[in-house]
């Protein structure tokens, strides 16, 4: 049986790969921003960026986080989150998500959620909600590498 085609299939239903090897480059973010210049119905962009913190755990400083994932499940969860976001904020023009895998050093960027909309309210609310959902629902694992070579497994609270 053919699945029902909805009008917003193109923007919501593709199972995109959000994962990138290594840190997210600020120049990549600039490119992502610049691409929206042709969408003159957009009035507001909201961007969240996660940066690896040099936390001190039991007196030892975190030097990097090594991220891994259960990729198939994560992408399936992400597709569901994306669809729900477009249902909650139908005015949203687009939503871009990237998460790093591999070793990301303190000070480097590991996470980006970028929403655009005609007005700021949708973009703002969507980014906040999507960031929170990704942190809670996506099977992504982080090994905090501390100075001297040990590690501690990170957990979102």
């Amino acid at each position, binding site marked *: 049986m053919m699945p029902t085609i909805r009008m917003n299939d193109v923007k919501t239903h593709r199972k995109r790969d959000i994962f990138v090897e290594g840190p997210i480059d600020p120049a990549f973010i600039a490119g992502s921003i610049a691409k929206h210049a042709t969408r003159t119905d957009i009035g507001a962009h909201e961007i969240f960026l*996660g940066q690896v913190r040099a936390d001190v755990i039991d007196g030892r400083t975190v030097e990097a*986080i090594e*991220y*891994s*994932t*259960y990729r*198939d*499940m*994560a992408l*399936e*969860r992400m597709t569901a989150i994306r669809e729900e976001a477009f249902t909650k904020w139908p005015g949203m023009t687009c939503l871009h998500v990237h*998460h790093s895998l591999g070793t990301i050093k303190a000070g480097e960027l*590991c*996470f980006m959620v970028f929403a655009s909309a005609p007005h700021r309210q949708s973009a703002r609310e969507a980014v906040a909600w999507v*960031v929170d959902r*990704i*942190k*809670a*629902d*996506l*099977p*992504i*694992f*982080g*090994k905090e590498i501390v100075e001297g070579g040990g590690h501690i*497994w*990170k*957990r*979102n609270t």
Partner: protein
Amino acid sequence: MRRTIFEPMKVLLFGLIAERAGTPTLELSAASTNELKVRLAEHIEGLAALTYAIAVDHRMVIGNMPLNGHEEVAVLPPFAGG
């Protein structure tokens, strides 16, 4: 076609759980997720002290759930994305 519990199935392990098991996959026989937890504890030392969840076909399992051996089963430590 009902599968016997003696056929092993492949269980995916992640993060801290994979580290403790010393492997990213285990071959185990279990007719339910509760039985799977017992089998896992036999293979992974100190598992009882760890927080983990079972995902079946990419969905988190709450409570017990029967397994037919054709599901994709994974053992997940706490998430740390973002």
